[in-house]
């Protein structure tokens, strides 16, 4: 299955947050560690709610966590 067109900086943000583990992040945003891993690897695009929770944990704006690298819809 292809990776999602949404890239993220969660790995770097965890590193900057005193090497926060995937399990710790998972507990704070209310998902499993496997889901955090899938999001980091681009295998799963989280819901808007979870995306905002992740941004809130790292106290950064959403666009600093996620960025869209897919096809530009205006060029269709």
């Amino acid at each position, binding site marked *: 299955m292809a990776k999602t067109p949404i890239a993220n900086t969660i790995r770097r943000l965890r590193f900057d947050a005193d090497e926060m583990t995937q399990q710790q992040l998972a507990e704070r945003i209310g998902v499993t560690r*496997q*889901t955090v891993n899938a999001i980091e690897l681009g*295998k799963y695009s989280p819901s808007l709610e979870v995306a905002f929770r992740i941004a809130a944990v790292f106290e950064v704006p959403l666009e600093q966590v996620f960025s869209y690298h897919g096809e530009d819809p205006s060029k269709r």
Partner: protein
Amino acid sequence: MSFREKSAWISLISILLVSVFFFLHVPWSLRPSTSPELVHALLVCAIALVVIEGVAHLVVARRAPLDARAPKDERERLIDLKAVRASHYVYLAGSLASVSTLHIGANGVAIGYGVLLAFVVAGVVNNAAKIVYHRRGV
């Protein structure tokens, strides 16, 4: 490997083991008189499936109790929904195909086997889809 993925593996292997045993041992003469044997074999296999799955899940859950107790999150719910959607079409197609054999002279027992086979294949597809979605992403 997460508890949910292990659970899908357990279900997949259990269904395959029990259904292979069932379809190899049920009487193959499809006369209506074989129906009581079919019901007996079905009961034994259903109980065996529950016992195998129950024991295997208990063993896995005891190794990772927190993982097993955790409620499903949004990704796991999405995986379940997609797996059910895939297996639903398999079951529907298999059942309709079995019932449609009535028009070519199949008897009730043969149709019963067909619907049961569709149910088993749908179970296999459901758990296989879960494993694929867990491994390759959803």
